[in-house]
């Protein structure tokens, strides 16, 4: 469509130096012809193309082709991107499992932080002890309770019969952060989050406004959400210029400040703090860096309003899961016993126990305290907050046992009979 205003030209013929023609004075822009010809059809068609591509990003991609490839290329070193990619694979698998004609088995979806991820390792259990249930693991690093609210549509799309999470006061009392590459394009979660945190608070500084707007961008464009995955797998070959002296790639890390971390610090000052720290370091020789990070995490715990916000958002998740017809199982997440003196665990657990007692009044929400999971010692943990294989076996057995009781009681009874019979 030709417009009325002068067509800016690229012509090279010009008179002397600095003698460029000034473009004609502006005049109203208008067009001839019927309205339908003047509408921006190009823009409309482009918008349709964009929506189709964005829809394809979210749609299940059988048989797991591109996301599998991304996972391989990501390697081990990108927890956030791996989490996003693994979620896609889980959703793809759930879609395939739920396809018409497929036999429908009970489903359990696990959500939560890396502590849930570390605690559930079904490969440690022999097949004969694993119930006929499909397990979908969507627990990854940094998926804190309030972020589950954003993931809810995806979690519910797996159509779970039981939602499982390993939690403790740790997840609630850590400073509340909203990572800009947030999970799940959910306007309702963003609005819910902003309502609870307070719009004035979120609009009161440039960093918080940027976080809010970035989260809105994630809601608007799923492709934007996966850009970090695509950057590292597809575009990483040429886009990240090798800048290090040794030619190594430099990853620019954007760190965002915690939004809220108010309230009383739970960290105590043990008399022999230095000795305790040394003892932890010696216990975890070779993993000192991880220990140092988690040491700081534990000592950053505060029982403030942010904890109440996270609890409220998790309750909303539970309510919607229950409304979808599923049940919930929460297991208490222990930390390394040697690290317990680092904070006032009794006070923290008291708050958590009060919360879970109220929540578990719903008969469809089940709680397993750590005593019901098993006995844990220092050698059950690979660092200060995550269990190792030995500890994971206990959690995995507890999860599968409870899931079987709830979802496949016949199988569970048969297993118990067999165990009794075989001693």
């Amino acid at each position, binding site marked *: *469509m*030709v*417009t*009325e*205003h002068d*067509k*800016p*030209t*690229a*012509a*090279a013929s*010009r008179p*002397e*130096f*600095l*003698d*460029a023609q*000034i*473009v004609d*004075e*502006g*005049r*109203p*822009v*208008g*067009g001839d012809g019927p*309205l339908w010809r*003047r*509408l*921006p*059809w*190009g*823009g409309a*068609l*482009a918008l*349709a*193309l*964009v929506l189709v*591509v964005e829809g394809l990003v979210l749609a299940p991609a059988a048989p797991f082709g591109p996301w599998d490839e991304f996972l391989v290329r990501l390697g081990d070193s990108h927890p956030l991107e791996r989490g996003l990619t693994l979620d896609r694979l889980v959703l793809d698998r759930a879609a395939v499992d739920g396809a018409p004609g497929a036999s429908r088995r009970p489903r359990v979806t696990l959500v939560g932080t890396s502590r849930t991820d570390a605690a559930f390792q079904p490969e440690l259990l022999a097949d004969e002890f694993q119930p006929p249930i499909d397990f979908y693991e969507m627990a990854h690093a940094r998926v804190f309770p309030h972020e589950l609210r954003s993931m809810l549509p995806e979690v519910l799309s797996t159509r779970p019969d039981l939602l499982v999470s390993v939690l403790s006061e740790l997840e609630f009392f850590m400073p509340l952060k909203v990572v800009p590459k947030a999970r799940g394009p959910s306007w309702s979660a963003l609005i819910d989050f902003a309502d609870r945190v307070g719009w004035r608070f979120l609009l009161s500084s440039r960093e918080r*406004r*940027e976080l809010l*707007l*970035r989260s*809105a*961008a994630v809601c608007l*464009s799923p*492709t*934007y959400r996966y*850009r970090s995955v*695509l*950057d590292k797998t597809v*575009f990483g070959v*040429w*886009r990240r*210029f*090798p*800048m290090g*002296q040794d*030619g190594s790639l430099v990853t620019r890390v*954007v760190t965002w400040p915690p939004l809220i971390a108010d309230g009383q610090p739970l960290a105590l000052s043990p008399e022999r703090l230095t000795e305790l720290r040394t003892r932890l370091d010696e216990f975890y020789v070779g993993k000192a860096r991880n220990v140092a990070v988690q040491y700081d995490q534990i000592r950053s715990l505060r029982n403030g309003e942010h904890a109440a916000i996270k609890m409220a958002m998790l309750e909303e998740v539970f309510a919607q899961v229950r409304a979808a017809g599923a049940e919930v199982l929460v297991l208490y997440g222990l930390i390394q016993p040697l690290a317990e003196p680092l904070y006032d665990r009794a006070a923290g657990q008291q708050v958590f126990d009060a919360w879970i007692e109220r929540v578990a009044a719903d008969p469809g929400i089940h709680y397993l305290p750590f005593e019901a999971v098993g006995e844990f010692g220092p050698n059950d943990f690979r660092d200060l907050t995550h269990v190792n294989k030995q500890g994971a076996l206990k959690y995995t057995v507890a999860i599968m046992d409870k899931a079987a009781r709830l979802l496949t009681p016949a199988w569970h009874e048969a297993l118990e009979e067999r165990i009794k019979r075989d001693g």
Partner: protein
Amino acid sequence: MLFNSLEFFAFFAAVWAGYLGLGLLGRSAGMRGQNALLLLASYLFYGAWDWRFLGLIAASTLIDFSVARRIGASDDPKLRKRLLTVSVVANLGFLCFFKYMGFFADSLADLFGLVGLELPAMAWEIVLPVGISFYTFQTMSYTFDVYRRRMEPSSSLFNFALYVAFFPQLVAGPIERALRLLPQIERPRKVTWEGVGSGAWLVLSGTFKKVVVADNLSLVVVEVFNSETLPTGWEILVGCYCFAWKIYGDFSGYSDVARGIARMMGFELMLNFNLPHLSTSPADFWRRWHISLSTWLRDYLFIPLGGTRGTSLQVYRNLFVTLLLAGLWHGASWNKVLWGFFIAILVVTHRAVLPKLEKVVPATLVGRSFWWTARVVFTFHLFCVSWVIFVPTTFGYSLELFAVLGDPWEVGRSLGWIVPYCVLVIPVLIMHAFQVRSDDLECVLRWPLPLRALTYAATFFAIVLLGEDFGQPFFYFQF
């Protein structure tokens, strides 16, 4: 508030919705309402950076409005000249104080130091108001044009204030003339589907140039020009290539976004960049690069100095003065002044050899194409040399870079930069080729519908997937 920020996206969406709604009130009432909204939005936009400098832009507005009114009302040449002087002194005074005071003080101290005198140390912590270099030039052009009787002074302070503070072009141009923009403010605008569509394309393509091309290339530029270790010869060359396209993407991208936003509201801002990296000579470069500044300097400095009238030496003098000040406009540092000096040498040299160059007319199409390409490549590299002076923060570092260029060149990391450089720049060059072939900078708007839609969608995804994190400021933002 930067154009390439989600904050601005939300701001403009709200302003545009209000603007369109007010347009429904009828021609006259709608126009007044729209102007009021735009003025408020412009001051909010400017105040979002630093509210303290709203007073400065308001003062500049009031001074030039009053002065122009009095100039227009007087026939006394001496009084008119005195009033014009007031405007120039006031505007240049603001500019010199905020932008150049520290530079002058340091230079004076260095000068005295050369002869063994020590001036008392003065710590100048003056914040540079964003856009001051643009709006002071804009208001001065108004008073000049009124003085020269090219236009009548505006009777509405309100409209004049909007002309000064119009947010699409307030902080980084184009430097609009009152002759162009004031009439558009003072009469009802028509927002059309074509205007919205073409404006949206300008915004999209401008954002692409900024966040995909410029911000990605800046990663290399920082490594070469801001690094603690000296780059190698080849690294400097590739760094200059990257800077050439980075500054183009940055500045022309911003200008395109400004024009696009304005067009979506029915305003037409002037073209500011006309494929400058396809220039065939230094003079041609200045006809294509930052056109609003170069024409401003031509009309209000070069021509009053004498322009091309007089002897060759006089013309060269005029060119040198104009380009030295053009360099100084770009920054308060000797690097920028020396850059202006270097550019002046290029322009003067080109002017001197132009008669001989004009005799080179290859007979065949291949020959003409080759000659054109050779001139473009040569001019591009001449300006690459100038970036070695322009970009570093100190002239000492520029000299070190030149010293490296004088030694045998080592490859260093440059090979690893070539591929991303090509991947980012080639799409721009392809677009340039289409634009030159069709002699139309907005040729995309006239492509067949499927191709147009594909281009729009691809540009959107390029921004979303490849754009550097939103929030990198435009190069000229604090000018």
